[in-house]
């Protein structure tokens, strides 16, 4: 069950409009290495995990990713708030404006709609952890590219926070890898012993 808390995990207070930056940041909303993909990836994987640690961690990181989706929404909203059609045109975003105006739609900066093709879950729990490790690294690298695109402290602070979270998540999934590999070994040994009787 999810309950919503009326606060951002980390404050987002943007003083200046920047439509081009908002467009770039869209990738972390509806793009391949974004927070929405992460949330759905982990909240789906959690269901079939073999250990309680795995279910717990995937559940909790998945939940935190939803909080990060919200931060990305806040950034985009504030960076485009009250933008005029002329401003959208000047930023080359008249295509987006034509359909969505100032509303946000889960897509990439190039307008590709969000897809579960970004979520490469399989049935094997250990393979899924490697997928998660890769996803966290890709998200980290994407945040670094976004940080290369701005000098504004108001934007840098929340993006840096989100980037640092990816590093923590990587570490936690790495620790889970050990737990699951051990679990797999123990299961295999037990089965072998049974057959010996």
């Amino acid at each position, binding site marked *: 069950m999810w309950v919503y808390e*009326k606060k951002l995990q980390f404050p987002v207070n943007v003083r200046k409009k920047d439509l081009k930056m908002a467009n770039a940041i869209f990738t972390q909303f509806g793009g391949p290495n974004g927070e929405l993909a992460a949330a759905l990836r982990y909240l789906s994987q959690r269901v079939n995990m073999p250990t309680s640690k795995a279910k717990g961690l995937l559940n909790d990181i998945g939940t935190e990713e939803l909080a990060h989706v919200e931060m990305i929404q806040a950034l985009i909203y504030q960076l485009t708030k009250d933008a005029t059609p002329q401003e959208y045109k000047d930023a080359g975003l008249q295509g987006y404006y034509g359909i969505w105006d100032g509303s946000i739609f889960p897509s990439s900066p190039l307008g590709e709609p969000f897809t579960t093709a970004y979520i490469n879950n399989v049935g094997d729990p250990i393979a899924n952890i490697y997928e998660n490790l890769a996803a966290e690294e890709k998200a980290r690298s994407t945040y670094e590219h976004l940080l290369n695109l701005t000098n504004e402290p108001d934007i840098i602070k929340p993006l840096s926070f989100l980037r640092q979270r990816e590093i923590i998540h990587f570490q*936690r999934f790495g620790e889970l890898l050990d737990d699951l590999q051990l679990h797999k070994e123990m299961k295999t040994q037990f089965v072998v012993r049974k057959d010996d009787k």
Partner: protein
Amino acid sequence: MDNMLSKHDLMQKIQELSFCAVELNLFLDTHPNNTQALRDYSYVLSELQKLKLLYSQKYGPLLGFGESYVGSDYWQWVAEDEKWPWEGDMKI
């Protein structure tokens, strides 16, 4: 002393403590036997509960769905002068 805190300052303290709770939660998920981490989590939890109650009594509920204190004269959750979290503090 805490009663003197503005909405902004109280929210800031809640965000700081809440973040620690999330960090410790994730750490405990992979280190469930770590009693030091558990002890720190309990400390953060008790501080948070105090601050959240204070916040919701003064400024309106932080959570819905039965999780937060609410006053009895208006459903503050949807008050028109309420800023939702994505709207930020600053005027653009």
